[in-house]
């Protein structure tokens, strides 16, 4: 009976979704990772865009991973991204500890959740974009002059080797010739 009464009511779940286009650009990605040395600090700038949707957005930024080396250094973590803008900057400071071992890797996972400025009745569905930045700890390679030096060294060694071979051949021939001469006497 109770069930019947309840069934008379409408049971509705409305999940209101605003049409929202949102994008995040990064100068570093899986094929182009960030490479830093121990003790080094760099500012990485991400770009927020709102070019496809139809309304102004507020994007909230948070670090899901990598807080041991990265922090967002802007005054607020809520970014106004008006419709038609493609140049909203998010600055992240990345600092590699002095004692970080070479070849170690950090992953910075930045999550952006964009919500409409114009809240509507019911339930809204936000738009999210996550950017992953891999940071590899490596020594910055020496200038290419070093490679040139190595190549010159190698050429020198080859020349010395040839000279030694020729000298040995000469000595062997002379020994053979003198022996022959001695036998003749």
């Amino acid at each position: 009976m109770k069930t019947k009464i309840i069934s008379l009511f409408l049971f509705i779940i409305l999940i209101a979704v605003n049409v929202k286009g949102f994008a995040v650009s990064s100068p570093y990605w899986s094929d182009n990772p960030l490479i830093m040395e121990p003790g080094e600090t760099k500012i990485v700038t991400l770009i927020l865009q709102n070019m496809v949707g139809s309304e102004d957005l507020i994007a909230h930024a948070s670090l899901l991973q990598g807080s041991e080396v990265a922090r967002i250094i802007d005054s607020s973590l809520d970014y106004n991204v008006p419709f038609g803008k493609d140049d909203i900057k998010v600055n992240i400071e990345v600092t590699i500890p002095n004692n970080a071992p070479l070849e170690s890797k950090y992953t910075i996972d930045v999550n952006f959740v964009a919500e409409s400025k114009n809240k509507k009745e019911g339930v809204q569905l936000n738009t999210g974009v996550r950017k992953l930045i891999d940071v590899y700890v490596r020594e910055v390679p020496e200038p290419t002059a070093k490679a040139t030096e190595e190549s010159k060294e190698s050429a020198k060694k080859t020349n010395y080797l040839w000279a030694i071979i020729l000298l040995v051949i000469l000595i062997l021939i002379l020994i053979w010739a003198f022996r022959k001469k001695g036998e003749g006497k």
Partner: protein
Amino acid sequence: MRSMEKQERGFIVLIILTVIILALPIIYPPFLNQITGRATTQSTTVSISITNTNPVVLSTAGINGSTQTITEGGTKRVTFYTVINDDNGASSINNVNATFFRSGESLRSNLSCVLVSNLNSTAGNFSCTVGTLWFDLAAIWEVNVTANDTSNGKTSPFNTSFTLSETTGMNATLSSITFASSNPNTFNVTSNNDPDTIQNTGNKNNTQIQVEGITLFGDTDSGTFIPAANFSVSIVTGSSLECTNVTLSNQTTTLVNNTLVSIANATLGRSATSTRDLYFCLMHIPLNVTAQTYSTGGTPDEEDWTVGVV
């Protein structure tokens, strides 16, 4: 006897000469060229009358080594400048072209750069604008500039490069998702207005779609609720396939409260037409819920759900 000694001496001299000949190319490398019949050099006077001088690309600015971004879901117009010189006079520079090239990608070009100003009697500064599309590969792109003059003389190839950064973006088509009125303890209530079509508006390949669900409390009486884990999302539909308890778990994903979860097989490729349809299911309405609206609004005002990409 004497003649034998003479012979031996001659033999030793011969050996020494052989060694010297072998050593000579090391001590004096051009020696080899001289004994192998290579033609000797000789000066001669040649007179050719050339009536036209080909134009030359002197420089480019605003693009060399720069980092560019695409515009989500559209065309980004990248403008840079190039200086062309023609000894026959700047006015004889007829046509300046610029292209962006990346192996495996469509060529992007501007077939007629615009003269901004003449820098002097022989050089002109040209403005080139090349459009990159939102699905162009994130990578280093080569920039090629060429110019013709009025006598059809052409410049030698001039190359530089820029980095096109990676953009992750999405667009959702639906303004709302609704579920039909249902009774408590009902199973597999599918949304009656999906799919929510998600488009890849960036140049990241294999973008993964994720959804974060939030437990829904009653809008007027928060004493009862529908857990986020009672909802599922899928890229398949029909016969309630979007409901986890109907289909295989590797085709449909159950939501987890307050956590971004990757939707099974919901990836977006890098192309102009890369979209995925998402279908929502309320797998079970708890028996004890009271009759009212359940949403993220009302009291309490819960966090919104999120559909995102990574």
